[in-house]
């Protein structure tokens, strides 16, 4: 199943990461960041998404941490980890990883996703003030 699914998912992941990476970091580095998206990172993200679907969150986190070691400034990877932690029920860490992702990107689509995830996580933590604040920020992006 995973094997069949891998190619199209990989393409999707690859293009998304490319977009994220292109927007990451300061303007000086823009071009080199886009080039630095390596196939191994794409493969690891694909594997991580499969792990997530199987609810193997530790496994997914291991794969994403490996990807991050290769591309630490890829905001998309930090976002993926935030999602894993959210699904795993580690809402504090989900918020932190989404925050980190936001510090690395100016891409409004990704930033919106991060703020939404934070809003959901704060809701889960029962912090409605911060949830609302994050929700508002997601609309402003």
């Amino acid at each position, binding site marked *: 199943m995973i094997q069949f699914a891998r190619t199209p998912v990989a393409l999707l992941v690859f293009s998304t990461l490319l977009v994220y990476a292109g927007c990451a970091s300061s303007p000086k580095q823009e071009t080199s960041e886009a080039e630095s998206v390596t196939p191994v990172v794409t493969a690891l993200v694909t594997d991580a998404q499969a792990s997530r679907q199987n609810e193997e969150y530790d496994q997914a*986190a291991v794969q994403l941490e490996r990807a991050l070691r290769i591309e630490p400034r890829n905001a998309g990877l930090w976002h993926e980890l935030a999602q894993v932690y959210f699904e795993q029920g580690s809402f504090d860490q989900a918020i932190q990883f989404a925050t980190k992702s936001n510090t690395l990107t100016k891409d409004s689509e990704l930033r919106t996703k991060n703020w939404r995830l934070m809003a959901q996580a704060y809701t889960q933590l029962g912090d409605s003030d911060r949830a609302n604040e994050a929700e508002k920020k997601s609309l402003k992006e």
Partner: protein
Amino acid sequence: MASKKSRRRKNSGKKRSKSRSKRAKRGRFWIRRLALLAVVTLIGYAVYLDITVRKKFEGSRWAIPAHVYSRPLELYVGLKLTKPQLVQELKLLGYRNSKNASTPGSYTVTGKGVRIYVRSFDFWDGPSQAQLVDVGIKGNVVNGLSGIDRTPVGDLRLEPHLYGSISPGHHEDRSLVRLEDVPEPLINALLAIEDRNFFNHVGIDPRGLLRATLANISAGSVVQGGSTLTQQLVKNFYLSHERTLQRKLTEMMMAVLLEVHYDKDEILETYINEVYLGQSGNKAIHGFGLASFYYFGRPLNELKPAESALLVALVKGASYYNPFRSPDRAKQRRDLVLTKMAELGYLDDAVATAAKQAPLGVTRQGKWSKSDYPGYLDFVRLQLRRDYQEEDLRTEGLHIFTTLDPLIQRTLERSVSHRLATLEKSRKMKAGSLQAAALVVRTDNGEVVALVGDRRARFIGFNRALEAERQIGSLIKPAVYLAAIERGYSLASLVDDGPLVVEQQGAATWRPQNYDKKNHGSVRVLDALSYSYNIATIRLGLEVGVDKVANLLQRLGLSREIKPYPSLLLGAVNMTPVEMAQMYLGFASGGFRMPLRTTRSVLTQDMQPLARYPLSLEQAVSGEPISVLNFALQSVVRKGTAKGLNQRFPAELELAGKTGTTDRYRDSWFAGYAGNYLAVVWVGRDDNASTGLTGASGAMRIWSDVMAELPLQPVDLPIPEGVEFVEVDQYGLLARGCPGATLLPFVKGTIPQQKSPCAGGGTRASVSTPTKNWIEKLFDTSNK
């Protein structure tokens, strides 16, 4: 009468014979009783032995120290790695350089890169199969990764390097192997020389004993032992080493009992893991699995027949036949093993003859010495002690996967020892008087990749990186400035660096001095940090509040209690290099606190995942102030106290860092980072005497020796939207387009309002001077 008499006589004769037979009967009775008792005792003893035999065999058979591994080298296209570096890693892992890399654990250097037959390994996230891969390397970058049929390979990890174990002082160490992973020549060699009837006897082998005796008589010395493998196992496993008849009989009984309960394979496998095969420092090498690493640096299943034969040769006496110390003896015994193998048909004569020509092939001693990186291992232990009992770490055979990068670790060790020697020589100091501690950390995840706690890398003992609490001096200053920036100061704010007297309640009046003993008047915050002015820093810190600085240190991850005395502002507080790395990691990571990590995961003895230590983070400082601070720390390198680094590193790296020198040159510090690595170095003397070194002339030299060897990336922290770059002059006034103006980052809302005369503002005289008077009143300080 006579008849009577005779009868009596008869009778008495009868009586006599009767009593004789009675006595005999009684004797027989006693003999029988004794025999019965003996039998019962013997049965009892046998039962006791039987319980003993089974008890030890059923439970966990050995206390095995936890084994500690480095990070796996992860290969991918785009990785910065040179051919020599890759070869160094392969050598470390015991890969053989062979012409066509035809078996796992071998490699060959080609024109385009390196062809590697990568070994299989069970990683936390799944097994990785052995595979033949071409790694293309051009210059210092991996530019291709493909299988034999040229299919691209995406995901490739070399196995991690096993570099140490966690254990008490004197102990046995072993690395368990399963029988199916033991190469056949090794088993054959073992049978040939030690017990050729192993698969046929019942634990004891009279024929073998006889044969050994005859062989020994004809040789004139003891060349063969008569004990079966089972007896040897019993001897090692259950019994003391005294040589008495009783012990020998016990050994034979136990051997038979062992054979009754367990099959040959199980006994053989246990023997293979039990047998003593060498001594490395205070560590006893047991079992063929670990011995293979110890003597050849490679796993057992990769040994050639001659190498297997050498290990088997050691069974008879690992010390006497030690191949490092007594290579001739070892070779003689190995060749005898090969001869026996050929005799019994396990090897072709030609093969055996060829094998005898082979050198012993043992690697330079030091492989699996006490530990390759004891300083680093201390930190691993310290961190694991939070979650594990020391006892479990010593006995459960856990596999601990750490973040150590052996290539960087070796670079750090070399840099520390060379540079200290050079400094001592050039400054005519007594050789060996300086000490140092240092660590290198990944800025993106807090993984500690290298650590040195003593200038002698193999030294086991006081670990300065973890335990030396030394004054941190100016290394504290970034925290003072960050606290100020968080409270609305900008890099263009002016601070007074004029003479200062601090009256402290219950303490002597404090008259802090600058390093150059001069005062610099009104200076910008940026310059006060870049040039490390003490007095300006104290004024700024007092304005902000010492408690705010102390609080910031805790937010950055320092857990020790910090008293908010004014002297804190000049770093009059003792901390370890590890704590300094924790603090600077907060700056390097863009304001995120991440615990320093040495361990990624722990697996059980049979490689099942047990615990994972994930990356975790928490924003400690928001993005705006941290990006402004980073600019200031880059300015320390660009033009300040660390500008010496520019001779060695290109400006594009935009390195950031801070020097630290304490009173009378007792401590020389440097903490600094590139985009991907942070390193902290301390140099000083154990007796706390003067070194004559500043942060720049001591620690920073080591720092630059190490960092120059690493594949550095530029410091490239994102600029948040709430930060704006504005041109200002040296007095902190807006100076767009003015000659000599500098472009500085400002948190929005802290941008100066007044313009420099050159930018159309009023004259400088009309510009207000800094806020020095009220602050001095507030803190009961006065101008001298």
